[in-house]
């Protein structure tokens, strides 16, 4: 085993690490912002809106992330009307295509998680809110959502870790994230074991950071559940 090419290429790995973090943070932010209205739509009592939200969740959870990414990156480029429109400035870039796929994917999973948490809010809390004369808006913003967010935290931590590992797919469409960097080092020095285990180490550290962050979040927001 020869780790000297890894040391030599550490700057490349760090560049990749940075892109991985950037893709993760942005897709989690965009994904969450999108997931909230989708989750609310999925529990509302307007039939078509509920159907639309559930359809979105079903489609994006029901297909592999790599297919979604290829549909967006390679698929969109196939159509002249996309290439000739203002949309092309967006879909031309591998970066935005990847981010778009990641954000929509994590939005679907997050929305489903929130939907479950919202529906499981205890009836007593809701009835108490109603008895106090709360409007639906107040009921959601004061009682249901804060409670649902708290209960969703542990599961959401998992989703963030899955998304972190999902970002490795960016390396497949010319982006140089951690996996992309590992592939360059491997193909240049022909040392797959060393190249990929180095990337794996970085992912382990990142996963650890996410786990730690969620532990802190749980400690803060789920304090009342601690024994």
């Amino acid at each position, binding site marked *: 085993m020869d780790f000297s090419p890894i040391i030599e290429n550490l700057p490349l790995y760090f560049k990749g690490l940075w892109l991985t973090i950037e893709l993760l943070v942005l897709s989690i932010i965009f994904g969450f912002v999108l997931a909230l209205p989708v989750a609310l739509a999925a529990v509302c009592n307007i039939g078509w809106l509920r159907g639309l939200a559930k359809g979105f969740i079903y489609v994006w959870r029901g297909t592999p992330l790599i297919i979604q990414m290829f549909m967006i990156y390679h698929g969109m*480029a*196939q159509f002249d009307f996309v290439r000739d429109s203002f949309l*092309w400035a967006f879909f*031309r870039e591998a970066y935005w295509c990847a981010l778009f796929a990641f954000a929509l994917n994590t939005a679907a999973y997050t929305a489903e998680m929130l939907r479950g948490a919202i529906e499981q809010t205890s009836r007593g809390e809701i009835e108490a809110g109603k008895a106090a004369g709360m409007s639906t808006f107040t009921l959601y913003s004061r009682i249901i959502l804060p409670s649902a967010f708290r209960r969703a935290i542990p599961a959401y931590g998992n989703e963030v870790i899955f998304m972190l590992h999902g970002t490795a797919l960016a390396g*497949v469409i*010319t982006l140089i994230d951690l996996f992309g960097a590992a592939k*360059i080092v*491997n193909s*240049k020095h*022909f040392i797959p074991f060393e190249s990929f285990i180095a990337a794996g180490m970085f992912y382990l550290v990142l996963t650890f950071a996410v786990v730690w962050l969620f532990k802190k979040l749980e400690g803060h927001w789920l304090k009342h559940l601690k024994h």
Partner: protein
Amino acid sequence: MKFYRLFTTAFLAVILAVSAQAADWSKVRIGVEGAYPPFSEITPEGELKGFDIDIAYALCESMGAECELVPQDWDGIIPALLAKKYDAIIAQMSITEERKEKVAFTGKYANSPAKFAKPKSSDVEITAESLDGKVVGVQRATIFDNYITAEFPGVELKRYASQDEAYLDATAGRVDLLMADSVAMQDGFLNTEQGADWEFVGPAYSDPKYFGEGAGIAIRKEDTDLVEKFNAAIADIRSNGVYKEINDKYFAVDMYGE
């Protein structure tokens, strides 16, 4: 434990058979790429075809060996050779100093220069300054990748796992230029419907410092006897007309070069 003994015996027999086979090269496994037309591609029926494929079979016939072709992605093509998934690589692999550190090469069996290609609508010229900030598509870990990385530092390089993927993004309009083997690009892209709006630009490149001495067959360093066998087979098909027959099926010029 009759079964156990039987199993062990059978296992040993297989190992002996395999190692006996490897020693006399009556059976040779050859790694090919399968995504590099017209040299190597996989038909819709799943069959391998192309110049490299025909050459591989012709060489095996000349050596009197039974051949098995193993398709392998370019990225992992040398590691898989070292891992003994096959015994030789016939994949238009240029003979370079970098690769010689890991594998042995036969003499060249083909040689063609590298070129840039651009969309017909583009008026880009090939100088170090004018390429600053331009997006150039290449296949990862090829001589073209090395050349652009070293000589055109201002270029935004997009590296693809296969040449086919680079063509896909070229048609989509995601790259300003492609750099690749001129023959591969001519037949695999420019002459196809997909590449109808693209054309060559700039000179032909063959500086041995970057582009090597032509394409050779890569073999594990310890298998010097197999290198000799392949060298003899290359000389054989060059002299008996088999090479020319295959060459003329695909190309108008002699791929062997001078």
